[in-house]
């Protein structure tokens, strides 16, 4: 009824190939932008901005990076948190120790992470599926070990590097709102770039590799090159996300924040959110970042009745139960659920 392609005629290929060919989608996107750019910084408390929204954006960015690799190119990685750590440490060292300006430092973190990621992507040229999963799991532990034991990087066995105060062109990024804008702007920029990549030739090649690799090769896709590019781009995103979350939220690079559980959480995000969709990366990150807080808040009412250790177990049980529930309801993720809703809206009020 409200959501239709009808009467929306496209007379050029450019219009047909736009990111949001349907006007309502376009308006919806603009509303989301206004929310994120203006409304949230105005009304949200500092706690909301710095401990909920910034991690949400960073994890959405990292999940999108993993989605490029797993959802689009069909290569799995169980070591993605380690690449976030590489980006975090690299950008902190560049910024804090060598005094390189903030934005180039963050970019540098991404580039170093991409280089390391490409190296650990090399096994993908010969193996796939479970075997690749194990080899990337190894990358998680290797990177973790190297960061902890290489004194030049971590400055000792605690593996912690403090983030200095941030400045862009002499302008201090000291309040949560300013950090929020930094994370948000970089996130929007990178998601836009990523969208262009996945809808263009490279994205099609990736999907071709994912669906039928030998047919892709026969039609002229350079398997080796495009798989490695997928690893590079994906770990670049992870590196940027890692450096953003460290600068804007953690305040110090600590290897414990990039543990293997974070890698599993990232995989959980893209599976719950929806493989091979951008929306899914956000929904999945929202699920993993916002939902535990929501559960925690809503259980707060029982604080007096139930002992707190049992309460925190209940929290975990509810969260785990919801993961299972969502996967049963829609195995293809929350993004697919959204598409189903849109399809229903298109036909409303008729059921078919």
């Amino acid at each position: 009824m409200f959501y239709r392609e009808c009467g929306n005629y496209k007379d050029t290929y450019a219009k047909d190939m736009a990111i949001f060919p349907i006007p309502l989608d376009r308006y919806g996107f603009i509303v989301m932008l206004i929310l994120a750019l203006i409304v949230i910084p105005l009304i949200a408390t500092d706690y909301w901005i710095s401990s909920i929204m910034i991690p949400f954006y960073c994890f959405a960015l990292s999940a999108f990076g993993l989605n490029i690799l797993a959802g689009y190119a069909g290569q799995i990685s169980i070591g993605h948190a380690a690449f976030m750590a590489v980006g975090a440490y690299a950008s902190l060292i560049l910024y804090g120790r060598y005094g390189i300006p903030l934005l180039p430092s963050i970019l540098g973190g991404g580039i170093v992470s991409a280089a390391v990621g490409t190296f650990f992507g090399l096994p993908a040229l010969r193996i796939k599926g479970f075997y690749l999963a194990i080899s990337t799991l190894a990358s998680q532990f290797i990177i973790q070990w190297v960061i902890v034991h290489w004194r030049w990087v971590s400055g000792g066995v605690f593996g912690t590097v403090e983030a200095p105060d941030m400045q862009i062109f002499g302008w201090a990024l000291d309040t949560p709102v300013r950090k929020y804008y930094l994370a948000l702007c970089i996130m929007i920029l990178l998601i836009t770039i990523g969208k262009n990549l996945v809808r263009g030739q490279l994205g099609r090649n990736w999907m071709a590799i994912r669906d039928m690799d030998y047919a892709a090769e026969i039609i002229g896709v350079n398997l080796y090159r495009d798989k490695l590019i997928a690893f590079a781009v994906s770990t670049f995103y992870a590196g940027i996300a890692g450096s953003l979350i460290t600068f804007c939220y953690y305040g110090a690079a600590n290897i414990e924040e990039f543990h293997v559980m974070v890698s599993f959480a990232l995989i959980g995000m893209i599976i719950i959110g929806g493989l091979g969709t951008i929306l899914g990366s956000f929904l999945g990150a929202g699920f993993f970042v916002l939902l535990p807080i929501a559960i925690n808040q809503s259980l707060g009412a029982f604080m007096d009745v139930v002992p707190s250790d049992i309460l925190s177990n209940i929290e975990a049980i509810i969260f785990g139960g919801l993961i299972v529930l969502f996967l049963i309801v829609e195995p293809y993720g929350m993004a697919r659920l959204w598409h189903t809703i849109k399809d229903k809206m298109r036909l409303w009020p008729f059921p078919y």
Partner: protein
Amino acid sequence: MNEKKEPILRAENISITFGGLKALDRVSLEINPGEIMAIIGPNGAGKTTMLNIINGFYKPDEGRIIFEGKERPKKMKPNLIAAQGIARTFQNLALFTGMSTLGNIMVGRTMLMHSNIFSQALYWRFSQKEEIEHRAAVERIIDFLQIENIRRTPASMLPYGLRKRVELARALAAEPKLLLLDEPMAGMNLEEKEDIARFVLDANEELGYTIALIEHDMGVVMDICDRIVVLDFGEKIAEGTPDEIKADPKVIKAYLGEAGG
């Protein structure tokens, strides 16, 4: 008309062994520009193996392939062979099931697109222009194969006959100099077979493609092909025009057995 042209592809004394099985034994064949050539033979004769060697999926143990007058290096990657201008379809469908029809066919043009990753990331001038140009070319192929209505349908939701057609479209999109079709009509009903036969003829006559195909339906093969190569147990037993093949005692023996001849 009848002047002898240099063949676009010449395979000389191709042999390949899988384990102990000699799948092809010193088979030579030529494909001339502008013709429709068929490779036929009983099951297990080595027809698909031959196609796999021509497009580089397998490396032959012996023999050489000369494409457009140049000998192919021993270990050439299939995507480079595709870049030389050989495209194919598969016997058991190999569509990219997660993509739409449009996406599938666009992948076929990947070799003809040249914008680099940074230009694609910004989707700026050159990249967008290229994308639109190729989209237009893909639309012409969609029009040619009459699959406009399934343009946006995911390949996984298409019925078998249409999948075969989309696969043909993907191969045509690469604008190959040599098009290899592995049983394009297998498992189809009469009407669908007629459609595909018409598309193959049109691709050959209107668009000027050189085509080599494998097909089991003798009626179709005899009707649309200019020349036929017959394989049996990895050896070439006959070669010639449809009429010659029909009358060849060796071919009759291979297909019908001793008593039938």
